[in-house]
């Protein structure tokens, strides 16, 4: 095998190329992002929410729990009776809406992130086992999964939440565990498709072990769809957390969360609409951002779709 081999069969000359570093890869990611404006917008929206959650103490103008009944139900700055001291107004107890929304992002993102982490990782492992081992194990796991999926989701979640009681950890665990079946089922379906594919046979033919095939051939093919579903699931969990909060089953009332704020605002919806509107907008903003970002991720994580020029 000579270095400067000229290939007899083609006659083409083999040229030496220099290796590329990390910088071009970053530029490449930026180009992928720049091409898809909706994805860029989604990522920006998500980053804003994430930054808000991380830097809440610095960003919030007031203590979100501090009550000031003198300024209770003060309208936002844009209305005639409002002023810049409380930009988004105050709620029924005189707590600053903006500060509460900023702190509320922490609950939403924590629930969304850890909920998806639990559901995604456990669901993926269960799905991998189910799909790759097959046989009785598969029938058993899928039987359980189908049983859980047959339950009406919201009723199921409300039921567990009312038994466990209100705490952030409980909410995370509820969403984490009730979403395992979704990830498990999608993973299993993909594994079943991929294990019959040509490249798995080809990997077998070069002596790859079953573990190796599962983790270095099948798993990377799953990551694209799974990460995409994870982003949609995350926004779903944020919605459901708000729903639980609205029903008074999420985090304790002392913790500012968008769902709790919605529940409070409901009583004043016709007279002081901003108390429910702003947390609602925050939820929409986050959900929309994550869905747009999820779409972009799906396109980018598949090397074949990535190539398509738009």
């Amino acid at each position, binding site marked *: *095998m000579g*270095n400067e*081999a000229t*290939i*007899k*069969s*083609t006659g*083409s*000359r*083999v*040229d*030496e*190329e*220099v*290796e*590329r570093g990390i910088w071009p890869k970053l530029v490449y990611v930026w180009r992928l992002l720049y091409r898809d404006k909706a994805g860029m917008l989604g990522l920006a929206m998500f980053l804003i929410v994430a930054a808000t959650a991380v830097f809440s103490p610095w960003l919030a103008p007031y203590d979100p729990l501090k009550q000031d009944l003198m300024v209770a139900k003060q309208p936002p700055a844009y209305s005639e009776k409002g002023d810049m001291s409380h930009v988004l107004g105050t709620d029924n107890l005189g707590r600053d809406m903006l500060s509460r929304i900023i702190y509320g992002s922490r609950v939403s993102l924590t629930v969304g992130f850890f909920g998806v982490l639990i559901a995604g990782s456990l669901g993926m492992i269960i799905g991998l086992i189910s799909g790759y081992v097959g046989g009785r194990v598969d029938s058993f796991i899928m039987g359980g999964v189908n049983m859980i999926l047959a339950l009406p989701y919201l009723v199921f979640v409300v039921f567990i939440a009312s038994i466990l009681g209100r705490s952030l950890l409980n909410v995370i665990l509820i969403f984490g565990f009730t979403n395992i079946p979704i990830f498990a089922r999608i993973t299993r379906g993909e594994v079943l498709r991929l294990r019959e*594919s*040509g*490249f798995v*046979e*080809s*990997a*077998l*033919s*070069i*002596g*790859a*072990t*079953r573990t*190796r095939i599962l983790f*270095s*051939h099948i798993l*990377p*093919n799953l*990551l*694209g769809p799974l990460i995409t579903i994870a982003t949609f699931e995350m926004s779903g969990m944020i919605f459901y957390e708000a729903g639980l909060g609205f029903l008074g089953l999420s985090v304790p009332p002392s913790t500012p969360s968008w769902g709790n704020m919605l529940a409070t605002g409901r009583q004043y919806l016709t007279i002081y609409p901003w108390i429910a509107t702003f947390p609602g907008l925050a939820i929409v903003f986050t959900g929309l951002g994550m869905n747009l970002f999820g779409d972009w991720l799906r396109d980018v994580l*598949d*090397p*074949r779709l990535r*190539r398509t020029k738009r």
Partner: protein
Amino acid sequence: MTKILSVKNLVIKFYTFDGVVHALNNVSFDLEEGETLAIVGESGSGKSVSMLSLLHLLPMPPAKIENGEAYFYGNEEEPVDLLKLNRSGISKIRGGKIGFIFQDALSALNPVMTIGRQISESIIEHLGLSHAKAKEKTIELLKRVGIPGARQRYDNFPHQFSGGMRQRVMIAVSMACTPKIVIADEPTTALDVTVQAQIVDLTKELQKEFNIAVVWITHDLGVVAGMADRVLVMYAGSPVEIANAQDLYSNPQHPYTIGLMNALPNVKGDGDSRLASIDGIPPDLMDEPRHCQFAWRCPHAFDRCWEEIPQQVSVGENHVVSCFFDVENGRPKENV
């Protein structure tokens, strides 16, 4: 010449919901070191099944090896029966001692894994090299199979290659650990003729360089004539004729082989004549073979052909035929 592989009396059946498919009936053949054996036959004749079964690549169930042995002599120690190896044993053979080139390179390559990693994977696995060394060796290999800009191409994904390039990559994958045998399962079927020729040439070059025995599964008799040392003709799961390539073309002994030769387009023809064909269709593999499988379509079939399964008979040096009829003299063989 030393034997590298010896397959004896291989019988494979598929137990499907609709019934038993008799995929392979008593297949025997030998493979010499460094030679090219072409296996030809129409679709469903058992070409691929026979080779896939050696590496345990058939889905079992439904497939079941009913009988047979396949001794591989490429190990340093004793010859091993491939069919009796356990999972870790066969993993060492696959890729390390016997490589496989698949027909459809696009689906045989992992779409989300770089070309480089797919080749270096087996080098790391079988030769125990470090990642860095495996990468260098992979780049060497990519150059060797004629991928321009190999170092850059190392990080490319399969969809960034053309069909011919992908097949070159497949060849690199299969030959990465310099195996003793490479099984090529119709590697040129999906390619256009010029690329076909390049792939055939490349395989021949590498075969000579590393002294690899190649089993070339195909239904293209033109490719066979160009590269094979010996040819195994299969029909409906049975081997009908094994001969040196030249003998087979100049002196075919089985009515099926003769039919195939007659069906080849002839450049010297007058232009008006129609291509010859073999009447009838291949038998249903669901029916258990009780007599010669070619009897339905054979112009020479007589009573005995409908009563017994013909055994392999030697009719010359390295020339074995499974037929009761003596084509040369136009009468049934006497000593069979």
